[in-house]
């Protein structure tokens, strides 16, 4: 089962995602992101423990990215595993999202 942990960090919120995100679990990711965005439009998504992502979950990221943009905020993704990063790059998602390797780097961007 995936887990979602969120923590306030100044005016941003850090959401840590653990587990596999597919069409079955994507609605849980959506809820976690919406809850996070309700607290702050500056979201750091720590995916270092996320081991899988399907396009249903990529769609959830895109929808929430669209929401934070309208609020003048941003989603920065950090700690992506290499095999997921490759898919992200190939599918062009790296051009849409800010993807950095560490939490420290993410904090510098937000």
């Amino acid at each position, binding site marked *: 089962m995936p887990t979602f942990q969120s923590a306030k960090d100044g005016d941003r919120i850090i959401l840590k995602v653990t587990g*596999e995100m*597919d*069409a*079955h679990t994507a609605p849980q990711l959506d809820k976690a992101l919406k809850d996070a965005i309700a607290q702050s439009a500056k979201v750091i998504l720590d995916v270092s423990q996320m081991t*899988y992502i*399907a*396009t249903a979950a990529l769609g959830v990221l895109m*929808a929430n*990215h669209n929401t934070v943009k309208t609020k003048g905020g941003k989603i920065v993704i950090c700690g992506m595993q290499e095999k997921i990063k490759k898919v992200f790059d190939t599918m*062009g998602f790296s051009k849409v999202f800010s993807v950095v390797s560490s939490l420290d780097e993410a904090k510098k961007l937000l």
Partner: protein
Amino acid sequence: MKQTLSLKIEASLEQLKKIRQELSSFFEQWKANENDVFTLLLMVDEIVTNIIRYGYENKKGEISLDVHYTDHTAEITIEDSAPPFNPLEYPPVDIEKHLNEGKTHGLGIHVLRTYADSCEYQKTKNGNRLIIRKVMH
């Protein structure tokens, strides 16, 4: 080592993880490249998701998967009894436009086009058969 794997699953999104686990274990014994296994799982996951959501429209149904691995090539045959639908005739996605417009759906078949080395669709007596081939490095 096993060269074939057959699965029959109930058409439910809850089964996606089980499919990935079975395929992962199958390819692990062959020590296949991790990135190739990952993209293969992704393709199967996307196709099965589409069958459940749009083929069976989240209603009851069955999906069968047959996996063959020979000469570093994985061949996966996915069969269902849903209304006929050929994903290979689905118009290609302009990915840049798609992302720029902030679209949130419609990338499953794009994944198949991106990562499969070859694909074949056959309409069967009861539904659909899709054969996906991928060279594993």
